[in-house]
């Protein structure tokens, strides 16, 4: 944890951290509102908007129809006219429905129109494998690497979730905010007060000297598990959590690679087309002289995730694959 605050910590789940952030920002700024499917009386299917409807009322916590192009495109219209929408896609798997709105409009509206507008909008996308099926259990962050106007933020802990979401809401750029559904139930300490985490700053989740493991979202948890196992073998890995992909904190990554000369990149999205490719390519382009081994990517197998949880075990990456990958280059 990079937070330097020494005040007492409050233990909250990731999902509570999200709703705390929304609650505080709704209270702070009248121009903030939230909408999505079942986020009102129901409190969101992951509970991440629980209690907000009761507290902030139906004008600001709004249930929409099943209309994803409106959820995103309508949010853009509101952002262009003075508001700060925080919109939710009930599953990040619905990104494709609103892809034109996300990729071509929300991300690009400012630039396309000469920089005349700001687009202070957050799109929350629950992602990752959680047993909800092929179309839902996706981690599509890599598909937005070329949607340049938009920031890509991906927290892995409750503290980061809260602090990054609050920063995202205050940011004048559009932010795609990915929340791994399996993390919602995890808990952790959150610094008190107006906890903000800057966007685009990586966090060394575990310092180490032998191998750099760049991991985000759920894979940070797996990397930390792997670190323990590897530690017992005398391999000391450094776990770098970029906490998002744009802005990408290359400085922190490069510093770590310079130190270790060995890199593993771990994400839950399948290897091919995952953002690990981009990160690996950056290193291969700018840091190759530091490398003492191949850059290894740990990721889901290159298939659509099967619906069956039984088969998912053969596809999804876990700590064990990180351990293997690290060993293979140590």
């Amino acid at each position, binding site marked *: 944890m990079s937070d330097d605050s020494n005040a007492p910590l409050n233990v909250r789940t990731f999902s509570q951290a999200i709703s705390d952030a929304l609650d505080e920002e709704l209270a702070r700024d009248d121009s903030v509102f939230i909408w999505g499917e079942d986020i009102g009386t129901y409190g969101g299917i992951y509970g991440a908007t629980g209690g907000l409807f009761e507290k902030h009322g139906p004008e600001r916590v709004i249930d929409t129809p099943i209309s994803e192009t409106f959820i995103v495109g309508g949010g853009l219209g509101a952002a262009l006219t003075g508001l700060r929408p925080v919109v939710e896609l009930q599953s990040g798997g619905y990104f*494709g429905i609103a892809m034109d709105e996300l990729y071509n409009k929300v991300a690009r509206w400012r630039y396309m129109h000469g920089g005349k507008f700001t687009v202070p909008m957050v799109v929350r996308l629950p992602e990752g494998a959680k047993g*909800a*099926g092929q179309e839902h259990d996706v981690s599509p962050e890599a598909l937005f690497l070329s949607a340049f106007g938009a920031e890509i933020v991906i927290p892995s802990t409750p503290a980061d979730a809260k602090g990054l979401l609050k920063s995202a809401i205050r940011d004048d750029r559009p932010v795609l905010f990915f929340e791994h559904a399996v993390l919602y139930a995890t808990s952790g300490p959150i610094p008190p007060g107006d906890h903000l985490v800057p966007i685009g700053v990586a966090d060394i989740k575990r310092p180490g000297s032998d191998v750099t493991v760049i991991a985000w979202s759920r894979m940070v948890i797996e990397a930390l598990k792997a670190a323990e196992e590897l530690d017992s073998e005398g391999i000391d890995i450094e776990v770098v959590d970029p906490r998002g992909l744009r802005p990408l904190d290359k400085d922190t990554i490069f510093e770590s690679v310079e130190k270790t000369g060995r890199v593993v990149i771990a994400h839950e999205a399948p290897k091919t087309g995952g953002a690990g490719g981009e990160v690996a390519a950056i290193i291969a382009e700018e840091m190759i002289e530091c490398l003492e081994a191949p850059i290894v990517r740990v990721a889901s197998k290159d298939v659509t995730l099967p619906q*069956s949880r*039984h088969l998912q075990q053969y596809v999804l990456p876990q700590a064990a694959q990180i351990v293997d990958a690290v060993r293979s280059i140590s």
Partner: protein
Amino acid sequence: MVTNQQQVKFYEDMVRVMLWEQRAMRLMQEGKVLAGYHSGRGQEAIPVGAITPLRDSDCIMYAHRGFGYTIQKGMSMVDMFADLMANVGGSTGGLGAGIPHFADPKLGILGQGGTLGTCFPIAAGAGFSAKYRGTDEVTICFFGDGTSNRGTFHEALNVASIWKLPVIWICENNRYAVSVPSEKSTAGRIVDRAIGYGIPGRSVDGMDVVSVYEEVTEAIDRARSGEGPTLIEAECYRFRGHHEGDPQVYREDGEIDEWRRRDPIESHRQRLIDNEVAAAEQLDGLQAQMASEVELAAQEAENFPMPGPERVFQGV
């Protein structure tokens, strides 16, 4: 006119659908199915009434609300149980579970989209195909009231109308999309959207299997004879939560009891008895027979092994 035999068959079919679901839920409780489920209890009259007049060569795009669609279209109950358990006996060979993507091309079961509203363009495409191939096959597309608000609804209904495609659009309006009441999310009447596309729109009592059957039969006749699509809105209600585990905080007081009095299976049964189409004992007998059919299917399905890791790379 619906024959007495068909009337009894409706009862049998709805009971089968209900019992299959009950048995599937037991599998879930036993931990043999690791997946969410959207119960269709209360809405059995719609898949049963609508699919009865279809032929094997006709197609369906089904919805997530229970499994009446695939059962009624003739899929093996064994396959379906096995799909839920994700073992190799399933139609997906061990891939499926959750919101399973059962399919059977030979029975015209084209599958389901997990992103709601997927069904509309695909159904229109299947309708186009039937016409292109010079057949009189029809396609039924099932969807919920909430799903009708996806943009794909508009694109597909417009094309189907202008090209007079043989597609029957059946909206199961059960008044909610998860927690959101239809009147808070859906402007006007869904059936009235037919007017904008210049096609027939019909409202039907979705709790009455005979009404559903009759209305859909008419729509199928129109479609087969080249007169194009029909939009049918079936008013109904789901008796259980959106999914198993739904706290159902959103229902209005007493609402559910009122609808339960219109239980499609119970009320059809009563009508059969009242009209002396069938005696209570005969219907009880059918019910027992269905129960054992379903039980046998579940047991057979449980015998299949789980797939190995190689399954993951098959059928890509």
